[in-house]
């Protein structure tokens, strides 16, 4: 393993110190339990939006803390969900008295830990609601799985509810808006290489030079299937077709198209893929009205990409365009 680390056991704590140093005035980072909160929290009278998940997906979630997005994020160990005491600590730092919205990605560990935290918070009289995002079309939601994973759709979800909360929307409104985003978002990802988890020291899986994994998640877990390596056209088709047919997205839809790098894919390739996806959607009469291109929900250094589509309406568009000031997303401010 070659990585810029000291002791692999300290990777998350060490990185959080660097994050704090890089964004003074914007973030307040506390250790033990680890919490990243916006520096001006709590904001009185505002719904607080709190998320969290395993580390290794940066900038998700810590890079999305700040005005117009998350009030706090709880970073777990690499690829491991945070603990209930982290969530409780985060909430106690950012509770502005208007309620708490917990944004959770649908994985067994994340759901169980946030559920435990929500029970403990409710017992303390905090008005807390939980929304669970499950946008990955690679997994069928059936009795035979833990349900669909939460992946790329988490980024627009956090942006949109964060904007509404910043503008003073109440907890019911934020919760309903989250439901709308989740219902209209679909994603799919693929990998060319596996990530190496620092405490493991070797790649999570091995792929031959002429293979790719299709339908991967963001934790270095193998995908739904291993396939022969395709060119960019083939890769975009393999991701876009299942997304389009799932919702389904149809002619006349207005969408946000989010082309995401899994960490190791350079922007040159990502823009190339994004261009293909835009052309495909134009051919189908789907109007791409907003786009996001870059590494925003990653799996350490994994090479690969994911596509996320969100069907927009005027309300979602307005909140997407609203000002945001975080380490990873900043506009209008």
């Amino acid at each position, binding site marked *: 393993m070659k990585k810029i680390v000291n002791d692999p056991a300290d990777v998350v704590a060490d990185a959080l110190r660097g994050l704090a140093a890089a964004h003074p005035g914007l973030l307040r980072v506390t250790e033990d339990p680890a919490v990243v909160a916006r520096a001006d929290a709590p904001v009185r009278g505002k719904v607080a939006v709190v998320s969290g998940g395993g580390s290794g997906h940066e900038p998700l979630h810590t890079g999305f803390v700040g005005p117009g997005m998350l009030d706090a994020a709880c970073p777990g160990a690499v690829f491991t969900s945070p603990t209930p005491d982290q969530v409780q600590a985060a909430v106690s730092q950012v509770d502005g008295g208007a309620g708490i919205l917990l944004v959770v990605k649908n994985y*067994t560990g994340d759901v169980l830990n946030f559920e435990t935290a929500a029970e403990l918070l409710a017992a303390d009289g905090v008005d807390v609601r939980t929304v669970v995002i499950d946008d990955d079309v690679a997994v069928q939601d059936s009795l035979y*799985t833990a349900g669909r994973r939460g992946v790329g759709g988490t980024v627009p979800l956090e942006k949109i509810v964060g904007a509404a909360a910043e503008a003073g929307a109440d907890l019911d409104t934020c919760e309903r808006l989250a439901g709308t985003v989740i219902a209209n978002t679909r994603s799919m990802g693929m990998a060319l290489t596996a990530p190496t988890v620092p405490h*493991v020291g070797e790649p999570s899986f091995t792929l031959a030079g002429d293979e790719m994994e299709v339908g991967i998640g963001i934790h270095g877990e*193998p995908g739904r299937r291993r396939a022969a390596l395709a060119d960019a056209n083939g890769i975009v088709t393999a991701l876009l077709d299942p997304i389009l047919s799932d919702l389904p997205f149809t002619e006349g839809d207005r969408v946000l198209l989010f082309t995401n790098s899994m960490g190791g894919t350079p922007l040159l390739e990502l823009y190339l893929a994004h261009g293909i996806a835009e052309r495909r959607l134009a051919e189908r009469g789907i109007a791409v009205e907003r786009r996001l291109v870059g590494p925003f929900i990653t799996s350490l250094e994994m090479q690969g990409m994911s596509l996320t589509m969100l069907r927009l309406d005027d309300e979602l568009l307005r909140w997407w365009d609203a000002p945001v000031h975080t380490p990873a997303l900043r506009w209008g401010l």
Partner: protein
Amino acid sequence: MPCDAAAVAAAIRAAAAVITTHRDELVRLDQAIGDADHGENLERGFGFVVSSLDGEVPDNPGAVLKLVATTLISKVGGAAGPLYGTAFLRAATALGDAPVLTPESVAAALRAAVGGVVARGKAEVGDKTMVDALTPAADAAEQTAAVAGELAEVLRAAADAAEAGAESTVPLIARKGRASYLGERSVGHLDPGARSSALLLRSFADSAAGA
């Protein structure tokens, strides 16, 4: 020797050492069908458990298990943290404040532990999870306790059944947890949580036999 709080605390320390020995094995099992963190999660969690026990040994077995539970819940994260945490919490509640363990109370605690895992995780036998190891272990413990076996025999029967139960996960398709995302590709792999459950029960049985 009666199995009191000190003996239970010693058994927990021994189990923590077993987890450390098997950390890499559990990581590799989770690497195949999950995200390669199960051994790391448990080692971190039991490390904190040992630190808690260094600070205080509660005065009855139930209280020791409650300390284990709250430590695992607050320190581990992932699926295994809340699931094992709930298991130890339910076992602690079943034991109440009795000063020593008996064959019957251990069997009842194990049954309560499985009930906790199922209540939290909603898995059934055959879903390729730790439930596949824990359920037959609770059955075997009850059967052995009913025929007046000793504590060590009850735990040995539980450990034997858990090991067989863990092995039985190899041909299964996972239906719960991260491994379920793999569908058919999860076949042919031992479930890491079932393996860690068998390791913990074997360690408890060894401690009881040596006590």
